[in-house]
């Protein structure tokens, strides 16, 4: 990978023959008019997506049989680079012969796969995946127009990465399951953010409502809160925050241990607490008679056992200073 990064190859070099062929000779460029629709007994649907100001836009024309909802013919016009034109051409072709509902299931990933020469070799480099995303969006626009609905009603989940079509829910699940903290870790489990990279963090090619870095941060904060809450609810010592650990220890010292030591005129004091290698080290100090008692070591062992028992944890060690 590193060697290839150093070579930083040309984008065009990585196009499949099908992309090149479609760019040079697109098959479905064109337009339909109301008249064309009437002649063929179909309903005309014209939908736009993208903007020339952003460098990419596409217009899709459908002739839909109103009885069967079947797309009997389709054409497109596009403002964009070679990949955008080739993607639009294949997308248009893929919709022909399908019902509007079937066409809605076509995604940019289907378009990219249709442009591959070999099943396992991408049709174009990752940063160009962005160009094929419009294919999916313009189909939804056209379907919404045909159905007289709002596009938002047709989108089921919130897609965060449009290139790889990964939803917010999927990202959240991965972050939770693998305790993901960084983008690099996240990308071990998903392709999200690997293509045009707009969704990774602010400042990319396109502005987004939500970025992967934000989701990772939010989910982690949420998980932390849940952990704390869980610790409080179950009283599980290992899951407590430092403050709650101290409180729990002092409570046991006050209620169970100090009264016992007081019988011999001694006492114990909480000094400090440290977490090392997942183990909680509790630092205590003897007071009164205990400070000079010869059976201090034995008492220490007993106190540790008592704390372990009361706190229901084997993950702690008591150290007297």
């Amino acid at each position, binding site marked *: 990978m590193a060697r290839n990064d150093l070579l*930083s190859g*040309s*984008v*065009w070099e990585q196009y499949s023959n099908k992309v090149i062929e479609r*760019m*040079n000779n*697109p098959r479905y*460029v064109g*337009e339909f*008019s109301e008249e064309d629709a009437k002649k063929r007994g179909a309903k005309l649907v014209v939908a*736009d997506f993208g*903007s*020339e*100001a*952003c*460098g*990419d*836009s*596409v*217009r899709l024309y459908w002739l839909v049989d109103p009885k069967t909802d079947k797309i009997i013919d389709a054409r497109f*016009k*596009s*403002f*964009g*680079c*070679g990949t*955008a*034109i080739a993607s639009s051409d294949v997308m248009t072709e893929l919709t022909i012969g399908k019902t509007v509902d079937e066409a809605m299931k076509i995604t940019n990933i289907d378009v990219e796969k249709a442009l591959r020469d070999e099943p396992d070799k991408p049709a174009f480099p990752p*940063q160009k995946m*962005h160009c094929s995303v419009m294919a999916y969006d313009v189909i939804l626009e056209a379907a919404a127009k045909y159905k007289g609905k709002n596009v938002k009603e047709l989108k089921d989940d919130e897609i965060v990465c449009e290139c790889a079509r990964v939803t917010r829910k999927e990202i959240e699940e991965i972050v939770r399951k693998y305790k993901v903290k960084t983008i690099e870790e996240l990308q071990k489990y998903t392709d999200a953010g690997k293509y*045009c990279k707009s969704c990774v963090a602010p400042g990319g*090619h396109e502005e987004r409502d939500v970025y992967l870095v934000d989701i990772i941060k939010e989910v982690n904060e949420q998980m932390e809160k849940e952990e704390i809450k869980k610790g409080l609810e179950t009283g599980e010592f290992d899951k407590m925050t430092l403050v709650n650990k101290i409180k729990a220890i002092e409570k046991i010292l006050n209620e169970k241990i100090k009264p016992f030591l007081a019988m011999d005129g001694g006492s114990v004091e909480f000094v400090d607490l440290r977490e090392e290698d997942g183990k909680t080290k509790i630092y205590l100090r003897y007071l009164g008679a205990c400070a000079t008692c010869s059976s201090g070591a034995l008492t220490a062992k007993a106190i540790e056992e008592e704390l372990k028992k009361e706190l229901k944890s084997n993950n702690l060690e008591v150290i007297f200073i």
Partner: protein
Amino acid sequence: MKVYLDNNSTTPMDDRVKEVYCKATKYFGNVNSIYDLGIEARRKLAEAYDIIYPAIGASDEDDILITSSTTEGNNTVIKTFLYAFLRGNPKKHIITTVAEHSSIKAPLAFCKKFGMEVTYLYTDENGRIDPKELENAIRDDTALISVLFASNESGAIEPIKEVGQIAKKYNIPFHCDGAQAIGKAEVNVRELGVDYFTFSAHKFHGPKGVGALYVRAKAPYENLIHGGNQMGGKRGGSVYLNGVLAMAEAIKLANEHLDEMNTRVKALRDKLEEAILQIPDTKTYVDKKFRLPNTVIASFKGIEGEAMLWDLNQKGIYAATGSSCSSERLEGSEVLEALGEDPEIAHTGIIFSLSRFTTEKEIDYVIEVLPEIVKRLRNISMTYAKK
């Protein structure tokens, strides 16, 4: 036919330069060695300097340090002031322009990480900064002014002399990125009033991997590359002697052909520009009197720049886009937008840059195929679809 019209990016080597380059490989001695082989190599280096110093009007008390590229020179100059700032010099402000190349913008972004501050001067519809705005931007803690000679994209030539006078008035060091200057305009560093000037040989038919950094006598300087005592200890690394000799030959030829650039090549550029403007819904930018004689930047409404490059490439014509959709970053066309163009048109920019090797036959061929290309791509274009 193959037509190379991306000469602001890089150029083919002149045959005469190639000859010097290849012959010079026999002087393999290290210029710092004390024996005869070293002396011979050092003499050749002196010969190269005999050409390079007068070629840019440098005085013998000034330094012309041999570098690997303009990028290295630009980094050296900017980081000289970064190091001073890091050592406690209170001057932390650098003034530059939005038109700069990444070899200026990237090191400046690096400086900002350490707490330096950068003012980017905007350019007008001719791609030029306003010297008055520069004067207004100057602060007590301004360490450096850095303004490029001309843009590789718009071809706009900046008012360097005026900037030089302002820099002198306020006693602020002035650096000029001259990558696009040699062979396209007369360069006299003393007359321009620059303290630093950088260039690369491959932009004027020399080899890649060699360039120079002019440093006026007594201008602040700190090494970027520490090493042996080559270049008076100011730039370590064994001197790339055959590269330097080739660069000397290339700069000599570039100056010799300057008249040709300003007459024949310019006329070809004008011919191409007129032909482009014959095509409906096209535009060219930057007043010719402010523009490099070899450059035309045009927009073709409705045709995204990379799609245009694609079709040109199919016809064997190599040009560049203002909007580099082909790069990893997929940036929009900042160049045309900076020249006041609407965002819809900004993505349709194409830059043609000629050289002294461009022939009339080649330009005629481009003029012949351009309308066909525009027709095909506009037929696909949504901009030209009936509503």
